[in-house]
């Protein structure tokens, strides 16, 4: 129970997965915050959730398969940092060998 909730190495791995580059000061501030959150979740995990769950789960509401108007292409692209000819544009993504 006393093992660290989030090791330094684990925190570094998460940064890589989340594509975050944190300065040493930011990391020092954020790691304890994240540990506090995970510590809370760990307390929840201790509850016997399986027995409480059965039969009492709310079912996901279902939607009829009816098309509804969404965004116009202009609206959809409005918030994009870069767009051209109706497409969102991002820096070149490598694909295939060498990715």
């Amino acid at each position, binding site marked *: 129970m006393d093992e660290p909730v989030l090791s330094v190495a684990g925190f570094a*791995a998460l940064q*890589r*997965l989340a*594509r975050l580059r944190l300065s040493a000061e930011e990391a020092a501030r954020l790691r304890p915050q994240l540990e506090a959150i995970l510590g809370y979740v760990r307390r929840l995990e201790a509850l016997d959730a399986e027995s409480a769950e059965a039969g009492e*789960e*709310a*079912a*996901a*509401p*279902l*939607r*009829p*398969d*009816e*098309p*509804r*108007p*969404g*965004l116009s*292409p202009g609206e*959809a*692209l409005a*918030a994009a940092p*870069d767009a*051209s*000819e*109706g*497409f*969102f*544009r*991002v*820096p*070149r*993504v490598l*694909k*295939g*060998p060498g*990715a």
Partner: protein
Amino acid sequence: MALDVPVIGLEVHVQLRTRTKLFCGCGAGFGAPPNHLTCPVCLGLPGALPVLNAEAVRLAVRAALALHMAVTPHSRFARKNYFYPDLPKGYQITQHDRPLATGGWLEVPLPGGGAARVALAQLHLEEDSGKSLHAAAGGAGGSRLDFNRAGAPLAEIVTEPCLGSPEEAADFLRALHARLTFAGVTTGRMEEGALRCDANVSLRDPATGDGTERVEVKNLNSFRFVERALAHEVSRQREAVASGAVVARETRLFDPGSGATAVLREKETFEDYRYFPDPDLPPLVVGEALLAQERHRRDEAPEALRTRFRTEMGLPDYDAGVLTQDRETAAYFEAVARRCADPKAASNWVMTEVLRQVKAHGGDWTRLRVHPEELGALLAQVAEGRLSTALAKAVFARMAESGEEAGTAVRALGGPVVRDGETLSALVDEALRAQPRAAEDVRAGHGRALGVLVGEVLRRSGGRAEPRAARRLLRVRLGLDAEE
């Protein structure tokens, strides 16, 4: 013996045939211009909430039952976190620890007769990603993204690693394609990516039970590619083993151009998707009612079907008999009738045009390239007077031949439907001159004669005039109200 026997497992992504996406009301169809089918939900904009599509659940349950799987009463959705530009939210909604269905099998016909059972592991629902169009190597301009497909509903079907050769894998995929297309689960259009496949390949030593590391091969989007890619991968692994090298655990991409697979990424580097239950989505509960309906649909005996077609759909006994001669005909008819809401019209078409096409292909329903929903939509247009029967027949024949969509086929058959303007006006004038008696009768109050005149306009337009518009204009010319 040594490490020599291929062990292949497939993960097949099946596009479910719904009108809308899995979690939003955007159209899930194809052919729209880029980014015309998006909304805050499928673009992952802040504050948007997913709501599950009932039809996607129904079709996934139908697929599970068709594959003899056990449906999980309470399944749940999870977030699979990874970063790629075609994934707007930064995570994919999928099912992880509690998939919609598990177990099951599919019977695959063997080349020499008989059949083999391929064991299945699970089926789960998930959303599709968007499409990236990559700039040419070294080119400027970055990658372009189209999110029309983002959020479209997929069922992922995973086999046990029990396929013993590339040919067997391809045969399995063909059988799965046929089974799910007939059940109405998917359009089956391979060229639109209706069935996409990844494979896990390793070699095993049957004597010792030892095996090589599993290699995942991605991007197998046609039956032919599956066979070629797997054949290449098996021989690559055999060569590696023979030369004493180690087969590394990695993901490889098949390049149809070269016929070879190449490393996409090494497995050990961060394949951590940090799955967790999606807090926006309560568990998916598949009720007894839905299960019963879909089981019934699967199991209904021909006699029961025949009775139901007579009583519920009001078909003559002759029609009901023809339509229940085999399950494929019955299933096709039902889907057409459901879409066009006119069982008798659907019956007439299936008994003539459709069965003629199927017969021309030696009775092989897999080669009929028009999905029943598409025919249903076509018949609905005929019923609404937006398409003449003659044109609809030509359109259907062309679709069956070319696999085109209805819109494309209509355009290919001589441009758009004539519904207004000079052309229609001229056609109406010609018809009135050609049928003076009918025109007189209508003026004298015999409304039925109008049908003769509409028919004349359609004939003169080569079936391209819109019946509804022709009728309206004729009424105006004859001094009646435009609407009846």
